């Protein structure tokens, strides 16, 4: 008797142990990413462009220096020049270097109208969060960002004119990549969902159970396991030329990337949808047909609404895969990080961005962790919102659980 007890307890212990291990591993991974990435997490990361642009400028003709008093309160780390109407502070950039950053520019300050000495716009503003790299003066030593904000402000106050102002716009942000990722999600779903769900409906509701169809199902099932890089090659070979031919794209672009991803996802969507269609009890089909409804009406009015939660799962799975997909995209969209995102141009998704960060010299692990954290948050938000939307949708169509 006790032998059986021991066996029972061992099995029970093993089950508990497995659950514990799984939970521990998951917590560890998320925890590690969280700890590493938390430091660099801030709103600017999401909104800023990636590429910082450096401008060399000088002051406009006929500028006026005044007393730019302001009522604003600055904390002790911020240094304000009333002469120039400029507040600077020390900070670290998104890569971790020490920089001098603009915290406030008085609206009347001449620094609002700077003359660009280089290419691009002729008039530029000095905006908050820009980095001052170097201020050159006539007849005085330049103020460098390496010397700190306090010194820079002091030097400014000691001068009435500026020969050159070298500053950099904000950079290092991942805004472009986020937008690309969102575009990819939407486009891929637009391609993959209708085709996938349609195919699943055909296979489950209309196709006869003959050899051909069974082979077809097996084939689709096999495809779910094909490594995505193969699809990436295919995307490069087919979709890139296709989009180049049909649109004004010239290289791998977001549309071709979405198409490639759609093909990757198609088997998964078909299979998950098929499974959720199968689960709908035949009783409903019989009842509907016996009432004189046609097969199409039965499928669209009874079966699909009931399979909705399964299709939803398919969608969520798809989104997860899209966000995480990197190998295939490397070929189909390319790896250049862009700030201005166009559908017909190459870009990167967040995952590829991480890859790009990690292949830099030196590898930027903290930033990658931060991006990973952001990805997790996007996935969480998407999950919750899709679940909420589906609840309302199901209630509206009278499909009640």
């Amino acid at each position, binding site marked *: 008797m006790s032998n059986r007890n021991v066996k029972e307890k061992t099995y029970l212990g093993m089950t508990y142990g497995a659950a514990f291990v799984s939970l521990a591993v998951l917590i560890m991974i998320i925890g590690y990413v969280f700890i590493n990435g938390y430091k660099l997490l801030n709103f600017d990361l999401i909104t800023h462009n990636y590429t910082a642009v450096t401008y060399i400028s000088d002051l406009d003709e006929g500028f006026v220096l005044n007393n730019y008093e302001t009522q604003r309160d600055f904390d002790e780390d911020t240094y304000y020049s009333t002469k120039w109407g400029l507040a600077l502070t020390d900070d670290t950039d998104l890569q971790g270097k020490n920089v001098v950053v603009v915290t406030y520019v008085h609206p009347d300050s001449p620094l609002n109208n700077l003359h660009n000495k280089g290419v691009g716009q002729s008039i530029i503003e000095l905006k908050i969060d820009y980095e001052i790299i170097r201020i050159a003066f006539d007849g005085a030593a330049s103020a460098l960002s390496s010397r700190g904000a306090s010194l820079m402000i002091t030097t400014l106050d000691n001068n009435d004119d500026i020969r050159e102002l070298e500053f950099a716009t904000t950079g290092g942000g991942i805004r472009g990549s986020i937008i690309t990722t969102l575009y990819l999600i939407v486009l891929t779903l637009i391609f993959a969902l209708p085709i996938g769900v349609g195919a699943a409906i055909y296979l489950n509701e209309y196709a006869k159970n003959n050899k051909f169809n069974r082979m077809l199902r097996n084939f689709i099932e096999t495809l779910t396991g094909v490594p995505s890089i193969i699809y990436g090659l295919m995307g490069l070979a087919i979709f890139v030329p296709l989009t180049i031919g049909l649109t004004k794209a010239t290289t791998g672009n977001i549309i071709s990337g979405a198409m490639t991803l759609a093909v990757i996802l198609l088997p998964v969507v078909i299979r998950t949808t098929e499974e959720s269609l199968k689960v709908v009890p035949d009783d409903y089909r019989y009842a509907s047909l016996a009432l004189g409804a046609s097969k199409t009406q039965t499928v669209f009015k009874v079966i699909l609404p009931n399979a909705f939660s399964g299709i939803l799962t398919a969608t969520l799975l798809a989104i997860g895969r899209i966000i995480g997909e990197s190998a295939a995209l490397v070929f189909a969209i390319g790896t250049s990080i862009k700030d201005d995102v166009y559908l017909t141009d190459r870009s990167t998704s967040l995952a590829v961005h991480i890859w790009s960060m990690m292949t830099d010299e030196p590898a930027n692990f903290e930033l990658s962790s931060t991006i990973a954290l952001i990805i997790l948050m996007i996935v969480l938000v998407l999950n919750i919102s899709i679940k909420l939307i589906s609840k309302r949708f199901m209630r509206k169509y*009278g499909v009640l659980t």
Partner: protein
Amino acid sequence: MTTIENKKTFEIKNLDLFYGETQALKQIEIPIYEKEVTALIGPSGCGKSTFLRTLNRMNDLVESCKITGDVKYHNENIYAPQMDIIGLRTQVGMVFQKPNPFPMSIYENIAYGPKCQGMKNKQELNQIVEESLKKAALWDEVKNRLKESALSLSGGQQQRLCIARTIAMKPEVILMDEPTSALDPVATAKIEDLIVDLKKDYTIVIVTHNMQQAARISDKTAFFLMGEIIEFGDTNFIFSTPKHKQTENYITGRFG
């Protein structure tokens, strides 16, 4: 006792049915009389439900099913190639053994059929829903919760809902495949009363395992055995003085 010969709604002759190689129905010949309850009895797997499904062509859903013979509905063979199957099914409705309301509201369940046929007018739909529920003796119990899920009803109520759903199509014939075998005795009694009431307006064919039920509510009874009809006649004769020994053995329970 003399039987007044009613009109024949269905006339079936020489009906053979095959599932692939297996013959499930052999040379079935039987009339179904208008506005009567015809009960089909017999042991499990003897073809009663299969036969029932030939009357509204639900057997079409089974790929391997082949049918030869005459199944005449109002003198038209329903297996003729030009037959409008959807139209047939609006005239010949079916209620199944396990109550199968759609996972929608009570209202939507009843309105489903008419909506599929194109009815859109809210008032008309409301009227049909109320009429059908009243005819199915369910209106009083659900009139204040039409928007609630049909699945919140009890088993017996769900089955009456399915009957109401069928009635909403205004059929001529209602086929019932063991409609009470999944229900408790009280729900069963309610539905039996309903059937006796419905036969004033509808022709009913009911498959049942419960012989007392067949004795209680049917006018004619057909005894099926191994795909054949052994005996068909007035219910009172079948249950008092059956002509065939096999019928006798079955209804006295000497064999199952």
